[in-house]
């Protein structure tokens, strides 16, 4: 095994081992130290992997290694990564030290257990993205529920039991259906005359799954949606998220927003699209409509929240609508935008959750009617708050913008009738401009609710809860530790905003591949011109006809 494989294994298993160790240490303070040291140390192999990754060959799975596990089921401990996985792994690893740092003063009881599970969660998340075996993916996907469940149930606020239970059961129920769907695909591929063996290798499955009939794909897609859509979450199966986010400890919220929701979108990208390409093509508009409803509906709900954390939680629903919209566009811009969204959303929303956490530690309330005007007391805090809010609004130059832009453009593009360019990889599904228009209102709504939040909490006259007592360990404004926690996220926001092309280049190959899969499955030849181009050639006589088409 090469060093890279060892690094990857370390990323998955070291947290688990350390988690056990943390559970055994005597001193609670040491739990924090060990967790911090581990999460920081894990950055080394992660960066090493980044360095060793061959980006010229980004769509093939690299650092592959597989260990037989349950041969009877074809289950192998098979890991590896393409560039999409690599980036998501980096995201997960990066968030580790941040959430550990952010928890230092926030968590005061049972810290061993807390840090142990936080660390274990790290490994599981890496496992999800590194899995090259369908069931290994599923196992890690499901396993992440447990640490999160514990973090919410044990360290959440008042309504934590209901929140954690709903979180677990909702996603668990959905993913049981997903398991059934995935197993069906595996079974189908095993029947394939060409392959004729039972395999859980994602690449092989992706290759053969497109042979399923449309009906089969439809059911498989429905099954996968049941799990992934809940995880994302897509309207109308989103209600667990605000609750979970609101009740979770800060670190939990950050991880939830930063990575765990991305498991759903990653599932969409990695499984729902390639394994049911025709069905996805067929039902993409329906999914996109749900995404758009989510964008608007959740956005408006944000606007009337009093609980600041709930506001940000609903904003996640709204934001991830864009991510799904990009996926349903089924074109290169859409997938790129969506992957970018997966990466960048964690930074801005994660940042907002941290901000709220820091505020909560000081004022012990999340009610925006009780605190306000914090800019005068906590200028540094307020600056970061405005910064992350703006990143979340999708201000160009910050991280929200490139992904939002690409997702919307892709929806616009994603209609043969509207897409004059007619290039391969461009038009994807049949969404069209109206999707972009309605989704675009999300931009306005995001501005409404985030500025509403910023206006209430940062600006105006200073207000504090009646029973406010200053936190013993914390200064009025952010301390150095907290600033250090926020800085990487802020840098990430700017970096993603100004250099999205780094990421776009990195994911370009896999994305083009995925688009090819969809196109091939739907009988679109590479380089085939869209009908639009023909119309352009004869613009004079067809213009009127076309006008009718475009609004269909």
């Amino acid at each position: 095994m090469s060093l890279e494989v060892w690094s990857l294994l370390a990323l998955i298993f070291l947290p688990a081992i350390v988690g056990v160790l943390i559970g055994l240490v005597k001193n609670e303070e040491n739990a924090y130290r060990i967790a911090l040291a581990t999460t920081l140390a894990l950055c080394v192999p992660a960066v090493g992997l980044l360095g060793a990754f061959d980006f010229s060959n980004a769509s093939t799975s690299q650092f592959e290694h597989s260990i037989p596990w349950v041969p009877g089921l074809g289950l192998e401990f098979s890991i590896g990564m393409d560039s999409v996985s690599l980036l998501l792994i980096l995201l997960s690893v990066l968030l580790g030290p941040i959430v550990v740092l952010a928890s230092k003063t926030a968590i005061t009881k049972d810290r061993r257990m807390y840090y142990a599970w936080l660390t274990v969660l790290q490994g599981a998340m890496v496992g999800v993205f590194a899995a090259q075996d369908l069931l290994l993916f599923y196992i890690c996907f499901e396993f992440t529920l447990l640490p999160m469940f514990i973090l919410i149930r044990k360290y959440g606020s008042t309504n934590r039991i209901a929140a954690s239970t709903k979180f677990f059961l909702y996603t668990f129920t959905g993913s049981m259906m997903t398991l059934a769907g995935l197993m069906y695909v595996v079974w189908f591929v095993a029947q394939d005359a060409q392959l004729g063996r039972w395999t859980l290798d994602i690449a092989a499955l992706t290759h053969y799954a497109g042979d399923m009939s449309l009906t089969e794909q439809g059911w498989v897609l429905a099954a996968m949606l049941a799990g992934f859509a809940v995880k994302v979450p897509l309207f109308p199966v989103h209600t667990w998220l605000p609750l979970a986010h609101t009740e979770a400890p800060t670190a939990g919220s950050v991880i939830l927003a930063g990575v765990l929701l991305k498991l759903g979108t990653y599932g969409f990208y990695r499984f729902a699209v390639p394994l049911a390409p025709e069905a996805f093509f067929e039902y993409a508009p329906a999914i996109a409509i749900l995404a758009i409803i989510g964008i608007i509906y959740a956005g408006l709900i944000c606007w009337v929240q009093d609980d600041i954390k709930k506001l940000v939680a609903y904003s996640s629903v709204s934001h991830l609508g864009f991510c799904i919209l990009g996926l349903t566009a089924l074109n290169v811009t859409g997938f790129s935008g969506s992957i970018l969204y997966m990466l960048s959303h964690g930074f801005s929303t994660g940042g907002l959750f941290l901000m709220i956490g820091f505020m909560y530690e000081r004022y012990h309330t999340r009610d925006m009617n009780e605190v306000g005007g914090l800019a005068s007391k906590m200028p540094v805090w307020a600056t970061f708050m405005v910064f992350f809010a703006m990143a979340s609004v999708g201000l160009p130059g910050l991280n929200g913008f490139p992904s939002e832009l690409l997702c919307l453009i892709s929806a616009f593009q994603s209609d043969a009738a509207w897409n004059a360019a007619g290039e391969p990889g461009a038009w994807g599904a049949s969404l069209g401009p109206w999707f972009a228009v309605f989704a675009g209102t999300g931009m306005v709504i995001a501005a409404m609710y985030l500025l509403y939040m910023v206006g209430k909490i940062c600006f105006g006259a200073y207000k504090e809860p009646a029973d406010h007592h200053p936190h013993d360990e914390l200064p009025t404004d952010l301390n150095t530790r907290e600033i250090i926690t926020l800085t990487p996220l802020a840098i990430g926001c700017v970096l993603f905003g100004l250099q999205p092309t780094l990421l776009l280049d990195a994911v370009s190959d896999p994305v083009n591949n995925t688009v090819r899969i969809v196109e091939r499955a739907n009988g679109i030849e590479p380089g085939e011109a869209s009908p639009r181009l023909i119309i352009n050639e004869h613009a004079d006589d067809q213009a009127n006809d076309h006008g009718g088409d475009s609004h269909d």
Partner: protein
Amino acid sequence: MTEKLAILWPEIFLFIATCLVMITGQWPSRAIRQFTPWICATALVLAFFAAMTSPATQGMFPAIVPYAKMIIAAVGLLILLLLSGTVDRQLELDVDNGKPFQSIRSNRGEFYAFFMFSLTGLMLTASADDLIWLFLALELTSLPTYIMVAVSREEDSSLEAAVKYFFLGALGAAIFLYGFAMLYGATGSTNLNEIAAVFASDGISSIGMIGMLIAVIGVSFKIAAVPMHFYTPDVYQGAASPVSAMLAFVPKTAGFLALMFLLGTVGWGSGLGGGHLPIEIEATLWIMAALTMTVGNILALLQSSVKRILAYSSIAHSGYMLVGIIAGPGSDGGAFYQNGLAAVLFYLFTYGVMTVGTFAVLASLEHRNGREADHIDDIRGICKSHPVLGWTFVITVLSTLGFPPLLGFIGKLGLFSAGISAGHYALIVVLGINSAIAACYYLRLVAVAYIDDTEKTKDPVYTTPFIMRPLAGVLSAGGVILFMVFSGPIVDGALNAASYVAPVPADHHDEHHAEEEPRTDEVALLED
């Protein structure tokens, strides 16, 4: 005859041990009395190895014997550990305090003997190829457990459990016996292979079908399938935890083996394009499976007694496993993923290990007054107060939930893939939804034991003085982890055991066997 004998060595070892423990258990010398479980253990170990070397048999399931008996012996060992101290506790205390030993008061001998009888019966079930044999083996498995339930605790509730168990058990036995009679009537043979051959050549007559249905329904009492499940929670709750653990494994295994053998006679080759049981049986089992899972799981939601929860969960698990039975051995039988019977065999082992672990934790805890831990508050915060037990509990419960990547998940995966391969999508959806419902109460158990804050209770629980019980738990939890990682051999074993030779129509059979088989038998008889 020797051929039969060759596969019966495990039973023989167990039977010898049974005879021995009946004597040693009553022995005045304490050392010898306490040696009793070790005899059982030795026999079980011997049986395990004897089973390992069992040759293949002829018939529908030629390779089932070694696997089935090995898992029986292995889980039997765990249960044996768990049974320590169940009976004669007061008696031994009295002896410690200088009272003379009164063998009349001692239950030890018969208790272990019954346990061994029951395991013998279970193993015999695995070797059964005849209705008479099957009937006797099933009764041998069940009858001792009735007594064990009754004597396991010196409380009224164990008697109540025993009476319910016994009467309903007798009813169930009567039902499947009547089914057996009709099967015999329909085919003229009690030999399962011959019955299968008749069914294969002449089709299944209506009396045969009714007989089969009645037999299946009767046997489903053993696995606590709806609507034959009613006794389960009461009996589990009434019996001592170790005995409940045994009840969760032993009759269930017997029932599933019997179901496999019975259904093997009609085969899974019916339906359009094959791959299905005859529709009457499939419909029955389908409804039964769906109801069993659902009823088990939803009723478990309302319980506050951990043992009742586990009982209902045991019912639900029978429902899961029925999916494997319905799915059958798959079309080509070459792979685990589509062999539902292999999945069932694997799951039986999995379930045995997990459930023994969970019960072991309960069995290891008791209140000051000797009342055993049962209420959900009794396990509150045990991860703090008794870390080893607590973690055992958490691991085994999560595994029972089927939480990946624990052993239970791998077991459930087999059922999932077999069900899907056989095309029973709706049933798989029911299974999925039920797993989620089940998650609700398993999570409650995990949360109570591990996560939630603890308050001081008036009546805390303490560990029992029997070190073997936690040991059983730890071994189970260790097994869950170990076999999670190295489940390959067991999966392969289960697959091998589940390889099903579809019955050959009787006319062919006659040409081959009717002329050759009896001759060998006669020779064998002469040699004897």
